[in-house]
């Protein structure tokens, strides 16, 4: 992955289905937005250019591990080229719900070679912060089964023929993905969040890490409206800016 030489920053969340990462990145992005930063959001598998193809493939169960991997890389490339990269260059904070690591874990769990998948995504921008939501398999499965009516075919890895039982297949497949995440966690510099903690505690930890790690660039590099100050009190920055301008004059 390529180092980020731009003004804007990239924050990503990773974890298996049911780890609660989407909830957390949504809360984080709202918090950053409320502090006046230019925040953009990019979700895995959401490119308008590729959507029809992915939908067709899933509906008709046309994917092999190879085409499944490639279409998600195409989707990722489109979001990166036409959305994420221009915004990061312009100085925005981009929050991504899943990033290339999802493919590193999931495609390898589907049988693709580790080197091939990593090379496939070598054009990606390296995130400034990557959060990994660590959760035991049973907890994640409990959340998913409690919250949704049905587990989807590819989510359960049914294409791999691991088991005829959807729940069983899901368990095996997500277990493999979990193993892949755990194996790369330190290499990829993940900030590990214990996803069994309360939502509030996880969010508090995330915000603290953002401030610790990006505090400096948040003050200087990233685009921000002038209405709000770091302590959350509105107006001070603007008043200061006006005072400065007056002093210059």
């Amino acid at each position, binding site marked *: 992955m390529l180092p980020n030489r731009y003004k804007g920053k990239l924050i990503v969340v990773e974890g298996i289905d049911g780890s609660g990462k989407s909830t957390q990145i949504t809360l984080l992005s709202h918090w950053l937005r409320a502090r006046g930063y230019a925040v953009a959001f990019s979700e895995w598998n959401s*490119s308008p*250019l*590729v959507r*029809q*193809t992915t939908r*067709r*493939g899933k509906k008709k169960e*046309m*994917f*092999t*591990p*190879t*085409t499944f991997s*490639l*279409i998600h*890389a*195409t989707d990722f*490339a*489109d979001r*990166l*080229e*036409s959305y994420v990269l221009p915004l990061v260059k312009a100085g925005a904070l981009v929050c991504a719900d899943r990033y290339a690591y999802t493919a590193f874990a999931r495609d390898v769990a589907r*049988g693709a*070679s580790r*080197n*091939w998948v990593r*090379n*496939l995504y*070598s*054009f990606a921008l390296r995130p400034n912060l990557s959060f990994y939501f660590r959760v035991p398999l049973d907890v994640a499965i409990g959340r998913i089964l409690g919250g949704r009516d049905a587990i989807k075919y590819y989510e359960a890895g049914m294409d791999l023929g691991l088991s005829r039982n959807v729940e069983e297949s899901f368990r095996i497949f997500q277990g493999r993905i979990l193993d892949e995440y755990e194996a790369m966690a330190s290499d990829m510099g993940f900030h590990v969040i214990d996803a069994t903690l309360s939502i509030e505690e996880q969010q508090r930890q995330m915000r603290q890490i953002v401030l610790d790690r990006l505090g400096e660039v948040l003050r200087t590099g990233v685009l921000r409206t002038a209405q709000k100050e770091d302590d959350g009190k509105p107006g001070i920055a603007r008043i200061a800016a006006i005072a400065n301008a007056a002093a210059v004059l």
Partner: protein
Amino acid sequence: MESRESRESRQSQTPLQFYSEPLPGVDCSELRGKLIVIEGPDAVGRSTQIRQLRQWLEQEGHAVLDSGMARSALAGKGIQEAKKGNTLGTITMTLFYTTDFADRLENEIIPALRAGFVVLIDRYIFSIMARAIARGEDRKWIEQVAGFALVPHAVYYLKARVKDLVSRVVLGRGAFDYWESGMDVRFGEDKFQSFVRYQRRLIQALDSMAVPYGFTIVDAMQPADAIFSELQRHIAALSFEKVNGAAARRGRRAARRKPES
């Protein structure tokens, strides 16, 4: 030194293999068919040749599958749609075409090879790679991405100069195509200028693959009939399963084995 004919014949008898990333679940020794690729830049006359070759091979009694870019059941439509817009980035385009290729490889080409078909392919991974390289993408990256492709029995590269392509486009279709002119990257002020610069880069990229990927170069500036005869000669030298020649083939094989024993 080994003659070209005997080399072609020998190459066509070794089992097919993958470049660098074997696809799971494919036993190459089961692939009994022939994999033949026609490569070349835009407007060089590839599809005319494929059509004639198909007719000829079928006359000879071979079952033929032909396959070309953006024709997959999975991604063909999506690519056509994406090309209508104005936001298709180079990496996205490269990967979309690779997806399309993978779908055809796994669902059409490999099953046909297993069934003993002659598979004629109008542009293989080399065009996808050349387009990416011409647009400035990393060669190693795309070579590894496309590493799950099968090494063809033969690749015929219809080679032409840019000025020949220009006259073909202008005299033939009468207009420069947006994508064939590389207008997504805008190599020049207008479609003509961009076409010339982009096609030059594309040809350079294809030329650079000729040796490492074992292309057989065919001069595309000959009349179509002459190109066809040349392709026929090459393809006839690939050792095919003959409709009436099974006994003769066994005989030849036995004759070749003798000196070794």
